[in-house]
């Protein structure tokens, strides 16, 4: 092995190249739509395109400056997805609608926030200090939509929005992140305790009842979301996030078994007790019966129209701007996957799903690569959350599972979702920066500046190395570690 092979490479130029590719895909899609609507390439188009390109390039430069070892594939993937979403939302806008521009504004805001996170946070391990603050913030965010005055009331059967001046915002999207931070902080501190104590039944080791506290908390949060906010999708998402993180923290499959039992039990009871859950399940199982199809609200019209759209797209799709995705309710938000399926066909939709697959895979890769338990848990949890969210949404649209009200990350119209997902990407980029960057294991000494430190010369990033590090120092005070 030569020295050059083991030296970490920033790969920022690769990122720039891929970024140009991603931008040409999204701007190309937008151009196709503009041409199709015979608005030609007007100033609006040039403004939108250059804004997206400029924001992406700024992001790229920030990565060069602040996280130069960050994963080079993530940003281009996310820009491509976000750009395709912008193009589709723009395409679905009826004359006079402004959803497309609104989405673009939110994209810029979300990217700015993600940049700020990278710029000011510098290192994800700082977040570990905010473990319990995160819990409090999560609770606050989840309670907000239920508080009179702030709550935007019940929209489409769910109480998940709050009112911020003229806008509405879904705090639950951000709660996904703060909950992940809390779980990661809590579990990285207490995993030994949870792991070692417990009773063995058969091949599985079950935890002590008192160690089940966080599990019960997470379950209660999920059920609370389901009951009070009537948001089945978020409920599944929060709980799935927690199960994966506790599984990764303890490597005990028993937690998964307990978790799945709890959620299936909770879901079963909920489907019996709460009409909105029962309606969802009914409109999934009996989507093609006349009564269910015509029922409003809670009918299957939305999902069935989405299926019709996807079917008409077939293998190659109708072409952007050539289909009739407008026939599907919520074509630019909940059902945007059906809109893509119709116009880009199976091939285009596979490409989009493949982008998500690559995105979360890079997230998992960062989790493997980073050396601190907190970072591993956080990266793994966030990546899995993205994957699970895609599964719940796309599975719902394709009638694989009941349709719930989750948004498709980066594609669907909606500011809160964009903001939350861009922050997730910011965090994942930061974790991947520590994962791929050169390692410095020496504790920081008071008075020494980070610049005075030298990176350890030969310690390569990689699982072989980090396994040792984490096992010998599972709970080292990692906040102190600094990088160039």
């Amino acid at each position, binding site marked *: 092995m030569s020295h050059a092979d083991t030296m970490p490479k920033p790969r920022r130029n690769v990122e720039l190249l891929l970024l140009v590719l991603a931008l040409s895909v999204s701007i190309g899609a937008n151009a196709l739509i503009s041409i199709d609507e015979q608005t030609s390439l007007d100033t609006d188009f040039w403004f939108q395109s250059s804004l997206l390109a400029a924001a992406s390039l700024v992001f790229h430069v920030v990565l060069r400056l602040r996280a130069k070892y960050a994963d080079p594939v993530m940003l281009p993937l996310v820009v491509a997805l976000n750009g395709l979403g912008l193009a589709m939302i723009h395409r679905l806008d009826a004359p006079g609608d402004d959803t497309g521009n609104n989405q673009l504004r939110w994209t810029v805001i979300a990217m700015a926030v993600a940049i700020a996170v990278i710029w000011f946070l510098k290192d994800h391990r700082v977040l570990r200090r905010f473990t319990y603050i995160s819990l409090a913030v999560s609770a606050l965010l989840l309670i907000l939509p239920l508080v009179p005055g702030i709550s935007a009331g019940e929209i489409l059967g769910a109480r998940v929005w709050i009112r911020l001046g003229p806008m509405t915002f879904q705090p639950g999207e951000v709660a996904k992140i703060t909950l992940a931070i809390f779980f990661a902080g809590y579990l990285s501190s207490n995993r030994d305790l949870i792991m070692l104590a417990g009773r063995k039944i058969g091949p599985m080791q079950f935890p002590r009842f008192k160690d089940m506290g966080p599990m019960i908390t997470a379950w209660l949060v999920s059920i609370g979301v389901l009951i009070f906010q009537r948001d089945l999708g978020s409920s599944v998402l929060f709980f799935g996030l927690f199960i*994966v993180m506790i*599984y*990764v*923290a*303890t*490597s005990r499959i028993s937690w998964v078994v307990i978790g799945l039992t709890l959620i299936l039990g909770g879901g079963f009871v909920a489907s019996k007790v709460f009409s909105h859950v029962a309606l969802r399940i009914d409109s999934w199982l009996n989507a*093609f019966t006349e009564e269910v*199809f015509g029922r409003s609200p809670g009918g299957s019209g939305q999902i*069935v129209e989405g*299926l*019709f*759209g*996807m*079917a*008409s*797209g*077939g*293998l190659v799709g109708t072409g952007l701007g050539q289909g*009739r995705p407008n*026939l599907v309710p919520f074509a630019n938000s909940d059902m945007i996957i059906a809109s893509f*399926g119709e116009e880009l*066909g*199976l091939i285009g*939709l*596979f490409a989009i*799903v493949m982008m*998500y*697959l690559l995105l*979360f*895979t890079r997230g*998992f890769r960062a*989790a*493997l690569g980073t050396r601190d*338990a907190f970072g*591993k848990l956080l990266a*793994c949890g966030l*990546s*899995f959350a993205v*994957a*699970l969210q*895609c*599964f719940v949404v*796309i*599975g719902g649209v*394709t*009638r*694989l599972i009941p349709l719930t009200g989750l948004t498709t990350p980066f594609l669907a119209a909606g500011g809160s979702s964009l903001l939350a997902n861009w922050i997730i990407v910011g965090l994942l980029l930061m974790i991947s920066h520590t994962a791929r960057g050169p390692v410095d294991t020496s504790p920081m000494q008071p008075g020494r500046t980070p610049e005075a430190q030298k990176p350890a010369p030969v310690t390569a990033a990689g*699982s072989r190395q*980090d*396994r040792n590090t*984490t096992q010998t120092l599972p709970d080292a005070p990692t906040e102190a570690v600094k990088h160039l």
Partner: protein
Amino acid sequence: MNQAIRHSWIAAIAMFALIFGAISYVQVVGADELKANPWNRRAILQNYCNDRGAILVGGSAIAESVPGNESCKFQRRYNQPELYAGLTGYFSRSYGVTGLESAMDAQLAGSSDQLFFDRIGQLFLGNQPKGASVELTIDPKIQKLAYDLIPDGQRGSIVVTDPKTGNILAMVSKPSYDPNLIATQDVAKEQAAYNAAIKVPGVNLNPSVSGPTGALLAPGSVFKLVDTAAALNSGKYNADSVLPNPAQMSFPGIQYQLPNYAGGNCYTRNTASFAFALQQSCNTPFASIARDLGEKAIAEQASKFGFNSDLGDQLKLDYAPSIFPSDLDAAGLAQSAIGQRDVRATPLQIALMTSAIANSGVQMAPNLIKAVRSPDLRVIDQPKPVALRTSTTPEIAGQITEWMTSVVSEGIGSGAAVPGVEVAGKTGTAELGDGLNNSWFTGFAPANDPQVSVTVVMQGVDITAGAQLTSPNAKRIFEAVLNK
């Protein structure tokens, strides 16, 4: 921990594998089924603005595509809309496709396999897709006459066929509606017209097309032709049989007594020949035949005339199968034998029964299509007469014809008599229970070489109006067709 991260990744990949599967199913495997779903509006929207073929009657279009506005290149127009609504149906963006527009959709839209090479040609020449035109067997003069013979405000139907070929020469029912209003591009007008039309009793918009094919009515005494055929077919009766003709018929164990028909001269004798019983439409002779032969024999003969079964899909119209009920008690069988109780028939069914008697016992499949022509006027389809089923033997058919002739020449059907022509006919009066009746006439002419069969039904009329509106109207149609 890294092992658990890898397992979580595998779980995420597994979820995505399911997504890929679900997308493939919706967009490729199950796509055809979804596209064919009747709730799927995309098919009609796809073709809505295309240049559909015309539906022609006597060389002029009753339905055609005319140049539309900017958003939609072609618009469907119905000429003489009320006269032909029951045949054409409508081609509506919101309410789907009915009637011949639906039955002949593949030809009219140009998607039929017979038009494959035309499509290829249109593709290469860059022409707009254009459908085939469909020419009907309808005689516009007879159609108009029949329509005008039903007074406005009266519910009724008239079916005129050629018994030897099954070709339908006229098929009308009132009240009618204007399909132009339901096929307009103005969604609000479309809805208003549909909601107004659907409230009119007798207008069947969907799925049954028109009174002649969709309305199930008590046939009354015209059903006695079935009893007569069954009696002769059993071998127990012949032309010389003497039938009991009591004033009432009693049944063991119940109070009910079936009265003889009060309108004619039935009361003058206690026994009757077939000729007399049919001429005066006496009830008790046929009730006693039914009691003698049993339910099974009557039901079998009814099915041979087409009850309880399809009329053949050559008609390509939706219709309701006529009903002869089963599991009858003695009184029920007696009432059913005279076309009361739960016996139901469409006007088209009665016309086909009469046509079978006229055509020596062979029932021809009803046919509306004279020719299908490609856009370059090449004939691509010309349906040949098809025998649907054998209803009875030529001998029995000849015997019934002889008696039916005497119904017009000597009996209560004398209103249908045409000077110089032997007309065979049978009247019917089905009591609706409120003093009003469904008044029928069904017959054909000339009796020795049938050219035309006419079936008239007027719903909800008293005896006098019924007598005026049925047989005399049939006479005028016979005269018009036979040029007398």
